[in-house]
């Protein structure tokens, strides 16, 4: 197991190397003079030169690359032009917010997606199955910001059940957090639950056809045990790989959800950074988020191995 984790971490290194190179290159791909683009049209010549010097853009490219990696290894991704604070600190301050929201949404996704997928598979071709799949189809076709807006109109404006936006930290006031996070989490989760329900259903149908399910029935196990133990344990193997994709989509989705609900997470931070041409922040935020996602995927691979003894034992 340890060798598996080490090997996966090692195989993630080249990916992260390229990811960091792409991130580094971004600022140099800005058409024209990056310093002018960052400073804006109304900037004075002096301001432009300051930015150029601060970001090291006056150095030769190789020297810049060297500094990028030297700083990266020390956990330094530069300073945000907008916030004036280190990029790493700005990101780490916002990260718990996004993580809490994503975790909430992930739990909802798993609860709704797995349940409806399993039920649909067990009731294949009945109205329950069809209703679940129609909802899943609508779910995957509903843009999450549109769903969020509709929810705000309904639950915040019309019914006044929940606030239209804003954020209360979980540690400060769990009830308040729940009140501010529920709509964002649902608007993220319904879409992904649709995706998960479709995959769970097809995987379960595939597994339920397997010979070992017939064996489990032939030895007189109750139906509940056949489905919840024998079928689910096997269906979870492919489903776990989908969870990695779902987390990636959650992070993507949280960008717009956080902006929509005024939640001070990484998504909002990066959107603001892009709108204000705060390139160091964009680079750093992108790199950190992607790094986390790569770690999540390694975690998913490890879970995969834990669930499947064939992988676990052969390496």
């Amino acid at each position, binding site marked *: 197991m340890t060798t598996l984790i080490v090997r996966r971490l090692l195989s993630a290194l080249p990916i992260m190397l390229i990811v960091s190179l792409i991130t580094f290159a971004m600022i140099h791909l800005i058409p024209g003079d990056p310093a002018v683009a960052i400073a804006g049209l109304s900037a004075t010549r002096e301001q432009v030169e300051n930015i150029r010097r601060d970001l090291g853009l006056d150095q030769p490219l190789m020297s810049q690359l060297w500094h990028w990696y030297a700083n990266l290894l020390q956990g330094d991704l530069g300073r945000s032009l907008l916030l004036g604070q280190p990029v790493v600190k700005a990101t780490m301050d916002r990260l718990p917010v996004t993580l809490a929201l994503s975790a909430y949404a992930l739990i909802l996704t798993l609860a709704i997606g797995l349940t409806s997928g399993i039920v649909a598979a067990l009731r294949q071709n009945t109205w329950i199955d069809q209703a679940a799949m129609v909802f899943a189809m609508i779910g995957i076709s509903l843009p999450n910001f549109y769903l969020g807006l509709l929810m705000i109109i309904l639950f915040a404006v019309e019914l006044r059940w929940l606030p239209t936006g804003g954020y209360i930290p979980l540690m400060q006031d769990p009830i308040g957090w729940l009140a501010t996070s529920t709509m964002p989490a649902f608007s993220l989760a319904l879409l992904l639950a649709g995706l998960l329900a479709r995959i769970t259903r097809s995987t379960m149908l595939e597994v339920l056809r397997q010979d070992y399910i*017939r*064996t489990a029935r*032939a*030895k007189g196990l109750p139906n509940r045990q056949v489905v919840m133990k024998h079928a689910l*344990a096997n269906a979870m193997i492919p489903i776990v790989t989908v969870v990695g994709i779902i987390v990636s989509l959650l992070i993507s989705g949280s960008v717009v959800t956080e902006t929509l609900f005024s939640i001070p997470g990484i998504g909002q931070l990066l959107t603001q950074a892009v709108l204000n041409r705060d390139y160091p922040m964009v680079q750093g935020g992108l790199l950190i988020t992607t790094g986390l996602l790569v770690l999540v995927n390694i975690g998913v691979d490890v879970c995969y191995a834990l*669930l499947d*003894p064939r992988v676990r*034992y052969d390496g």
Partner: protein
Amino acid sequence: MSLLEVRNLTTAFQTARGEITAMEDVSFDLNPGEILGIVGESGSGKSVTALTIMGLLPRPPARIASGSIRFGGQELTTLSEGRMQKLRGPGIAMVFQEPMTSLNPVFTIGDQIVETIRAHENLSNRALTARAIEMLEKVGIPSAATRMSDFPHQLSGGQRQRVMLAIALVCRPKLLIADEPTTALDVTIQAQILDLMMDLRDEFGMAIMIITHNMGVIAETADRVMVMYAGRVVEEAPVMRLFDHPMHPYTRGLLECVPAIGQDKERLVAIPGTLPEPANRPRGCRFAPRCAHAIADCSAGLPPLETLAPQHTAACFRAIELQSA
């Protein structure tokens, strides 16, 4: 009294092109401790017969159209799923053709045996483990106690089939249904598994229904043989009698191409032609289009299964005539 009495059993499947009968009007008896061989090509209805008795066919699309199954005096066709589930294991157990895929890959073999006992008996964990190890030893798994924590992929095909037998027999069933239990195995392993089944029959005293397309397997194991063709029983007799005096031309065809045990699987090539599709079976005798002795009358109606000698029935209009010829 016989252990199992099957009478005029017909199983139908709902398909996109209407209902088809996978097996029809099948009747037979099985006594305690007896070994009945059911033989026929793939698609002849022998596996459907087994799965119908086990109550393992998904309904729908499957449906018992008529007939009865009495097991130990109890009618199975009308039994609730809950009661049927209690019967699987201690009443009737089954092993399947594919040992490679019939064990759940994500659970240890110990767990898969233990849960079988637990589903039917109330035992302490220690007793459960002891029973499982004992059973593994009985099916010839060496160092059984340590193999309990092995996963199926760590075992060979022959060992997996032994584990399947252990799972099937651990609740001491009165009837074991073995559907092509050796077909997927190597030649030498085939003989070992068959020997093991015979030994276990002697030890546990259960009846066995062995399903195969291999006449060699029948000769090694069965007391009595039932031959099926296109969903119907065409001949039934004690094994020696059947091998000596086959009365149905199809049985004779099968016997002419008996492979040595373990020889290539689906090789019943001596009979020209193929099994008719269930949807378009010929009128009259279903074997007629492939039969060297068919005459016009053979297509007039279904030949009834008639007792032509003591304990020997066959469904052929010309059986007596051909016998004396």
